[in-house]
């Protein structure tokens, strides 16, 4: 049996399969660079073959002044200038300097090792807090304001857009867009210590009607939490996590108001079901070593069940 890891579906994400207007130019540029690089490598290898094995006449021509001018000066000047002009024209549409009118805005803040997601209205006022998952409507650009709370991270959802560093003290802007509804996985692309490789992200793209329904469903927690909520409040969970509609107001960890409806747990890395929830709560350190949430070994089986059932119910 081959050794393997099998985390949530679609993660790590495909990097050469663009699904929107802000990732297509990046993929095209990558293929053109690869093809051009291959052609130039073949020319260099041909020259090398001539230098080692070629006839004296060919060797003389290759070492002549004319060959130096053409291959050493004119060729790289023309190729690199052309590539620069074409590359800048191709990727000018990716610039977040000109943001399309009415684009949805979301602030995403990199943390070790997860993501805060703060939805904003047109005036830049915060409308909703979530974590590790971003919901967008299809067919329209979304402006991401990328920040970092601690160390440098890099936001990358390869199928929807380019890669952009998240730097403490700066706000970098990135546009993404999805052509079709679906789930698009992302990954922190700048080594940020410890379980950096387990810092995944999920974008869920909806049709406009589904997106409106999703927005309307983001209400504070309503139901009676019962034993699960009581355990959540008495075991220290609320010191780090917020569940809107309850006394849990912690800010150090991800907002859990809708944790039951997320596609993944642990920032994009595990499928979300009662089993993985119980495993994460009881011993997230075994899954994502060094993450900031301690292992909770004090719960009995029944308590773990109650807490898990409550968290899973937070849709």
């Amino acid at each position, binding site marked *: *049996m*081959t*050794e*393997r*890891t*099998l*985390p*949530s*579906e679609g993660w790590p994400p495909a990097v050469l399969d663009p699904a929107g207007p802000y990732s297509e130019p990046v993929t095209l540029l990558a293929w053109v660079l690869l093809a051009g690089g291959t052609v130039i490598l073949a020319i260099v290898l041909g020259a090398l073959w001539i230098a080692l094995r070629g006839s004296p006449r060919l060797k003389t021509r290759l070492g002549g002044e004319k060959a130096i001018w053409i291959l050493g000066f004119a060729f790289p000047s023309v190729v690199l200038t052309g590539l620069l002009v074409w590359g800048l024209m191709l990727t000018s549409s990716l610039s977040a300097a000109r943001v399309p009118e009415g684009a949805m805005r979301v602030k995403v803040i990199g943390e070790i090792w997860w993501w805060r997601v703060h939805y904003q209205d047109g005036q830049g006022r915060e409308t909703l807090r979530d974590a590790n998952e971003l919901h967008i409507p299809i067919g329209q650009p979304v402006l991401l304001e990328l920040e970092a709370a601690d160390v440098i991270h890099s936001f990358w959802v390869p199928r929807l857009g380019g890669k952009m560093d998240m730097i403490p003290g700066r706000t970098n802007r990135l546009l993404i867009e999805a052509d079709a509804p679906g789930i698009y996985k992302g990954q922190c692309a700048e080594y940020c210590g410890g379980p950096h490789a387990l810092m995944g992200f999920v974008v869920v793209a909806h049709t406009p009607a589904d997106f409106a329904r999703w927005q309307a469903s983001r209400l504070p927690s309503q139901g009676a939490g019962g034993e699960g909520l009581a355990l959540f409040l008495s075991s220290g969970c609320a010191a780090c996590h917020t569940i809107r509609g309850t006394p849990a107001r912690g800010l150090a960890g991800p907002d859990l108001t809708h944790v039951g409806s997320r596609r993944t*747990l642990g920032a994009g890395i*595990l*499928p979300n*079901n*009662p*089993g*993985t*929830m*119980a*495993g*994460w709560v*009881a*011993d997230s350190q*075994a*899954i994502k070593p060094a993450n900031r949430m301690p292992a909770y070994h004090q*719960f*009995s*089986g*029944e308590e*773990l*069940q109650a807490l*898990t*059932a409550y968290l899973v119910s937070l849709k």
Partner: protein
Amino acid sequence: MKGGAAISVLMLLGACAPVPVETAPADPAAVARGRDAAARLGCGACHAMPGITWPKGRVGPPLAGFGARPLIAGKLPNRAPLLAAFVTDAPAMAPGTGMPAIPMKRAEADDIAAWLLSLDD
């Protein structure tokens, strides 16, 4: 509970002394499907699983050699029908366990049981 009677009978059987060991060879296709379903559901969040390098959860027992274990959760005889019922709804089968009921299709549970019973390393 539907199927409760059958389970009771199986449990009684499990308590009787010489129960013939199931010798029917496991269906390799079911075993492979079960292994994939277990990985897809994230069973590794709690259990170290043979062949899966990550995650290696520590909340529940490692699953290597599961087919050779006499009991499920120290309580139930380790037979396919009980095991399939257990992986779907552990609290109903072993009250007090920390393993929650996990939504899955009946066929998935049967495949996962076939895979678990095939683990002899």
